[in-house]
């Protein structure tokens, strides 16, 4: 599903974010990416949807050479991915249902499928009753669930989440993690950068630890491995 080989990234400022990274993630895996702040997690995540290009190395997503894509082909790569951020990134002037439908509308899905599919994913994240509410009327956990619904509405091969529980309390985080587990059970690959020790230790999934741009640890049933303060 994801293959990175010899990937390095040096920013124009001279800062080195990643050094010679080799990663292979198989379809259906659930992978945590952990490490101290500034270790290169964000760069790693952003490379997956070609927000950041590596200085050297190769990246393949579902067999597609991400780096050889022309700019007008990038949207089609992103349609295979569901991307989730710490700050939810919802449109405040649209309802929950409209926010989710937005992801289908911009890839020009047939109109008659949109309503049905939106109802389906809202059911999955447990927000069916909130469909007509605006994001401002929802709690943080609910907003993140809307973002998850939007990320999976187009049936992506891979869900990429950058600190999805970073703004949430432990109880809400657990709910969110359970939704990710649910999505993962349906065969969707999940790659999640996180600082959330409790969740990583609880989930017992593969953990890749990045420090100083290197992969220092890659364990099948890993733990967070850092002090919570970090």
């Amino acid at each position: 599903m994801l293959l990175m080989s010899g990937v390095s990234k040096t920013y124009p400022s001279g800062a080195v974010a990643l050094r010679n990274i080799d990663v292979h993630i198989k379809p259906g895996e659930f992978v945590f990416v952990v490490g101290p702040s500034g270790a290169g997690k964000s760069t790693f995540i952003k490379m997956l949807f070609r927000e950041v290009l590596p200085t050297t190395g190769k990246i393949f997503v579902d067999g597609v050479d991400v780096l050889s894509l022309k700019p007008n082909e990038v949207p089609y790569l992103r349609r295979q991915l569901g991307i989730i951020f710490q700050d939810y990134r919802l449109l405040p002037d649209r309802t929950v249902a409209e926010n989710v439908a937005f992801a289908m509308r911009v890839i020009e899905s047939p109109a008659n499928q949109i309503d049905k599919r939106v109802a389906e994913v809202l059911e999955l994240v447990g927000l069916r009753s909130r469909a007509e509410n605006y994001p401002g009327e929802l709690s943080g956990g609910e907003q993140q669930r809307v973002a998850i619904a939007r990320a999976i509405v187009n049936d992506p091969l891979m869900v990429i989440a950058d600190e999805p529980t970073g703004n949430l309390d432990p109880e809400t985080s657990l709910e969110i993690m359970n939704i990710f587990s649910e999505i993962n059970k349906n065969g969707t690959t999940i790659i999640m950068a996180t600082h959330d020790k409790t969740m990583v230790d609880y989930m017992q999934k593969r953990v890749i630890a990045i420090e100083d741009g290197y992969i220092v640890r890659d364990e099948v049933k890993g733990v967070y491995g850092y002090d919570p303060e970090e």
Partner: protein
Amino acid sequence: MTLRSKNYFVKETFNSIKRNQLMSFASISTVALSLLVLGLFLLMVLNANNLAQYLENQVQVTVYMQDGIKDNQVQAAQKSLEGMPGVIKVTKITKVEALDRFKQRLGDQIRLLDALGEDNPFPLSFDVQVDQPERIRALVPEIEKLPGVETAKFGREVVEHLFQLTKILRIGGLILVTLLAVATLFIISNTIRITVFARRREVSIMKYVGATNWFIRWPFLLEGMLMGFLGAVIASLFLIQIYLMLQNKIYTTLAFFPLIPSWPFLGYLTLFLIGIGTFIGAAGSSISLRKFLDV
């Protein structure tokens, strides 16, 4: 592009204009003003050209006789004129007739004549009709050699002066219009930039969920085009009003002045302005989108 997407684009365009009412209003007004100036210059240049063409195609020479000429000399001159090659008709206009014609032309302003007192400054003249306008150039020197002839006037002389005028109008108009077009382009691209900025969150989400660049661009492009289009329509409406008013004025005071008939001329002019306005709108948006959307 699906039908649903088209509806979406149109909806987004109108929403965006509504959200940025003030800037949209400024953009539309600038387009309208610029195109109005462009249109006025076009009206002038085209009418001057038209007048030049009209005069060039005149097949008439006016022959003015010396003052105090004898009747037998007049008759001799008329005979000679009638005998010249290509001349089809010679009409004599006496001093009295010439004065009457002028009185008619003056219309309401007949009081101006009071200054002349009893004098009649108009000489006796002949209107000489020729079969082809090309003949006139050769004919005029011949006519001027006839005894008793003061001078012979024909359209081409005026035409040459007129060409000078249209040249100045054209160059001046071109410079002014270019400047205005650049200003319009700048204003529209600025408006679109503000629109893009106001919607940057939406745009970034669109990029993450895999919207194509054209899907993101269309609403902004349409917005620019619509502003250009509306500006052009407003400019055209003003221009049509101005031209019709002018025509009315000229027909009642300077009836001999050949204005281009309003239809279909104004129709073409409107289409032309709308084309330019829409194009400037699209170009202005494109500049902004390239610079600020980075899609």
